[in-house]
C-alpha cells in the first residue's frame, strides 16, 4: 500500500552502512523464508503421520505456529524496528482481549 510514497524519495543516499544492513536483512529474510516452509512441512507431517499421538501433535503445531508468528511479525513486518510502538500496543491489547474471550468461552462451554 505504497500509494502515499513519493517516487525516488527512499533510496537517495544509501551509504555503505545501509547497504550492509540491507544485505543482512536480505539474508534474514531468506533464512526465515526457508525456515517457515520447513516448519509448515513439519507441522503437516506431524498431523499426517501416525508417529505421534494427536494430543501431542496439537501442542506441537501450536508451538510451531508461535515460531511462525514470530518470524512473520519480527522478520517480515519489522516489528522490532523503531516506530512500531503503536502496532505493539495494538497487538498486546488484541492478545489480551482474545485471551480473555477465548479463555472465558472455553471455560463456559466445557
Amino acid at each position, binding site marked *: *500500500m505504497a*500509494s*502515499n*510514497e*513519493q*517516487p525516488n524519495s527512499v533510496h537517495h543516499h544509501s551509504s555503505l552502512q545501509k547497504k550492509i544492513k540491507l544485505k543482512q536483512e536480505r539474508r534474514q529474510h531468506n533464512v526465515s523464508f526457508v525456515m517457515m516452509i520447513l516448519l509448515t512441512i513439519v507441522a503437516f507431517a506431524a498431523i499426517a503421520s501416525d508417529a505421534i499421538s494427536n494430543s501431542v501433535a496439537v501442542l506441537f503445531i501450536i508451538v510451531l505456529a508461535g515460531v511462525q508468528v514470530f518470524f512473520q511479525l519480527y522478520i517480515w513486518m519489522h516489528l522490532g524496528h523503531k516506530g512500531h510502538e*503503536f502496532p505493539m500496543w*495494538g497487538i498486546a*491489547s*488484541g492478545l489480551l*482481549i*482474545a485471551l*480473555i*474471550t477465548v479463555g*472465558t*468461552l472455553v*471455560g*463456559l*462451554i466445557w
Partner: protein
Amino acid sequence: MSNAHAANKSVLWDWLTTVDHKKIGILYLVSGGFFFLVGGLEAVLIRIQLMNPEMTFLTGNLYNQVLTMHGTTMIFLAAMPIIFGFMNAVVPLQIGARDVAFPFVNSLGFWLFFFGGILLNLSWFLGGAPDAGWTAYAPLSTTSTGHGVDFYVLGLQIAGAGTLMGGINFLVTIINMRAPGMTFMRMPLFTWTAFVTSGLILFAFPALTIGLFLLMFERVFEANFFDANMGGNAIIWEHIFWIFGHPEVYILILPAFGIISEVVATFSRKRLFGYSAMVFATVLIGFLGFMVWAHHMFTVGLGPVANSIFAVATMAIAIPTGVKIFNWVFTMWGGKIRFTTANLFSVGFIPTFVMGGVTGVMLAVAPADYQYHDSYFVVAHFHYVIVGGLILGLFSGLYYWYPRMFGLMLNEALGKWNFWTFFIGFHLTFFPQHFLGLMGMPRRYFTYPEEFGLGSLNFISTIGAVFMTVGTIIFIINVVVTHAKGKKVSGDPWDGRTLEWAIPNPTPHYNFLQTPLVRGLDALWIEKMAGNKKMTPAEPVGDIHMPNNSVLPLFMSIGFFIAGFGFIYYSSAGAPALIAIIVGLGIGLACMFLRSWIDDHGHHLHKEDLLKEDKGVDA
C-alpha cells in the same frame, strides 16, 4: 500528472472511482440513508401488523423475514455506514489531514459494504429474505429452508469485510496523520470515539467473520459445527455472535457520544466539561464492551457464577457512561446555549439515552432477566439506546455537519418539525413497549390474542411509529428543499471550535492549503480567542501530493458480489453456481493483482495553481 485529466471525465465516473474521503463520506451517507428508509419501511410494516390483535396483514414466515431484515438492515446497512459517513467526512478534517491513510482501501471498504447490502436485499426478489432473526441463532438458521439465510451469511460477510477495512483505515489515519501539535489529548472527542470505535471494529468483526464462515460451511458444505447430533454445539454460535454483537452496540453508540460531545460544546460556547474524563470513559467503555457478551445469554444456563460475573461487568459499564452524561450536563451548565436543531437532537438524546441505560442495568440483573428475556421489554430497551441514542445522535450530526459536507445549511424550521415529530413519535412508540414486555408480550411473535389485553398499548405504539415516519419524511423534504434553494454558507456557520470549521466552503479537495499548527484542544477556538482570523500554518504553501482515483475497488467488489451469488446457490444449483464462484473470485483476484502490479504514485497539485484556486475561493 495533474488533476486536470480527472475533470474531463463524467461526474458519474468521478463518483464511482473516487478515493476522496469527503466524497466517500457522502456515498456512505446516501447509501446508508437509503437502507435506513428500507429498514424504516420494514419497521412500519411490523407496526401495522401488531397494531391490533390477530391482524392478518403480515403473518408467519413473511413476518419473520420482515423482522429479520429490519434488524439486520438497520444495524449493518443503515447505522454502520452512516457512522462511517461521518467518520469519513469529519475525522480527517478534525485532525488536519488531507485524506485518510489508505484512500484506495477506503473506497474498497465502501463498495464492499454497498454490494454486500445490495446482495442481502436482493433476497427479497429471489425466493425470500432471511427469517432466523438478526442474530441468526443455530439451529434455526442452520435448518432454515430456502436460500434466505445464505443471503444473510454472504451479504454480511462481504459488507463486514468492508467495515473491517474501514476500521483499520481509521486507526492508521488517526495514529499517523494528525497535524503538527495535534497530540492525542488534543483530539476532538468525535475523533477519539472514531478511534476507539475503529479499535472495537478491529477486534470484534473477526468474530463475526469466523461465525459467518462456520454458518456458511454448515449450510453450503454440510459441516456440523452447530449440530448437536453430530457432536457440534448450537450454543457456540450464540457465544461467537455475541462476542461480536456486544462490542458492535458500542461500535454504534460511541460515535454518537462523540457527536453529542461536539454539538453540546459548540452550542454552549464552552469547552467540553471534563475532556480527559470523557476520553477515559470512552476507552473504558470500549474495553468493558468485550467483557459482557454473555449477558445476552443469561437464560441459556451458564450457571450462577458465570451469570454473576457477567452481570457485575455489565453494571460496571454504567459508571463511565454516567460520567459522560454528567459531563454533557455540566458542559451546558453556565453555557450560552443556542437551541439549533442539531443541539435539540443532542439535548433530546441525553434523557432518552439515560432511560435506555437504566433499563440496561435492569436487564443486567441476571435473576430479573429471566423475566425480561425475549420480551418486548428488551425490544424497548435496545430501541431506546439505538434509536433514542444513536439515531438522535446521527440526526444531530447531520444538522451540525451538513454545511461542512454539502456547503448548504439545512432549513432550521423544518429541522425543528423533524425533531419534535421524531422525538415524540419515538417515545410514543417505544415507551409503551416496556409495559407490553412486563405484561408478557414476547418479541418476534407476529400476533397476540385479544384477551391478553395488549391491544391498546400496541395501538399507541403504532401511532408513535406514524409520527416517526412523518419526522423522517420531513427530513427528506428538508434535504430536497435545501438542495433546491438552500443558501450557501461560510466555512464556519456555527462559530465552531474544532479544525473542520477552519476550512473555506466548499471544502477544497485537498482540505488544507497549508497543514495547520495545533496549539491545544479546540484548535480553532484557541486561534479565535488569540484574535487570529486563520489557523497558524505549520508549513509554507507547497506542492500537495494527492492519491489518484481508481475503479479497481468497484470491480473488486463486483467480483466478490458475483462470487457471493455463487456460494448462495452452490448447494442447489451446482455447476452454474461454481462458475459464478470462479468468475467472481477471479475478477476479485485479478483486481488485486492489478493493484499490486501497477505502480500508482498519485499526483501533485502545484503551488501556483493552488494559490490561484485559493484566491478564487476567498473572493
